[in-house]
């Protein structure tokens, strides 16, 4: 009887871990799909779109996750097929230097101007 109980507990634990892994896969899948642009719809992510293209991408992402591929590997696969545009979150490369560095530059220049003004006020 004790052995049976242990078996039942073990069986339940195994099922729960399966459920847990499915849930983490789903969370990861949704996160990835929300970061992929539907290339044939205007301004929609694959997650939001019901187009044929989006549903094929959803299947591909699902397959890749089940194969054990990491988030970055899936993005790399899609980038290779469709270019950087397919990912909403752009990577830092020679085409996106301005995009990433310009806000930082504005912040630094703005900060310098404010500091100069404050220093001038204090001098007065």
């Amino acid at each position, binding site marked *: 009887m004790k052995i049976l109980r242990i078996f039942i507990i073990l069986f339940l634990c195994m099922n729960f871990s399966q459920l847990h892994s499915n849930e983490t896969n789903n969370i990861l899948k949704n996160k990835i799909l929300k970061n992929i642009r539907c*290339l044939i719809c205007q301004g929609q992510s694959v997650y939001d779109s019901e187009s044929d293209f989006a549903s*094929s991408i959803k299947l591909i992402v699902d397959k890749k996750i089940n194969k054990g591929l990491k988030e970055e590997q899936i993005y790399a696969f899609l980038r290779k*097929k469709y270019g950087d*545009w397919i990912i909403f979150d752009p990577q830092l490369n020679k085409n996106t230097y301005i995009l990433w560095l310009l806000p930082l530059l504005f912040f630094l220049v703005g900060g310098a101007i404010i500091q100069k003004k404050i220093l001038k006020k204090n001098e007065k």
Partner: protein
Amino acid sequence: MKNKFILFIVITFLIFCFVVFYKGLNNSNTYTPIINDKKRIPLFEAKDFNSNVYLDSKKIFNEDIFYIVNIWASWCVPCRTEHPLLMQLSKSQSVKLIGLNYRDNFNNAKNFISEFGNPYSIILIDKDGTLGIEFGAYGVPETFLIDKNKDIIKKFVGPINQEIVNEMKLIIK
């Protein structure tokens, strides 16, 4: 003097913004992919339309010739307009046409082929569109030209026309 300089900077900035937005308005807001980027053909396994047997991509592209991969579907209207051009291309000995039947009903696809003719050496079934994604396709119709090194050297989104056929013929020669 200082005020004049600030005014100059502000006006220059506004002119810069105006030019950027004006140019942006004239640009097309639909994404045009980099279509002439050389890419290796993907490795895949797909069901053959006629025999229902799974074929390996290495077996499909095993000859030392050019290949044309055409994504089509019976429900796709532009596919009907480009079909005679595919028939014309299939007469060439130096190229093999591979059809990729995209998200289609088998019987409708069969009727389409019997009505308009079969330009393809092999037709592969892409029931869920994932094979198209492996090729980097957006939808139907789409055509890929593959060279002897098994690199995708050209990609044509949308139906092909006589101009594209002539271009492909020139490359295949």
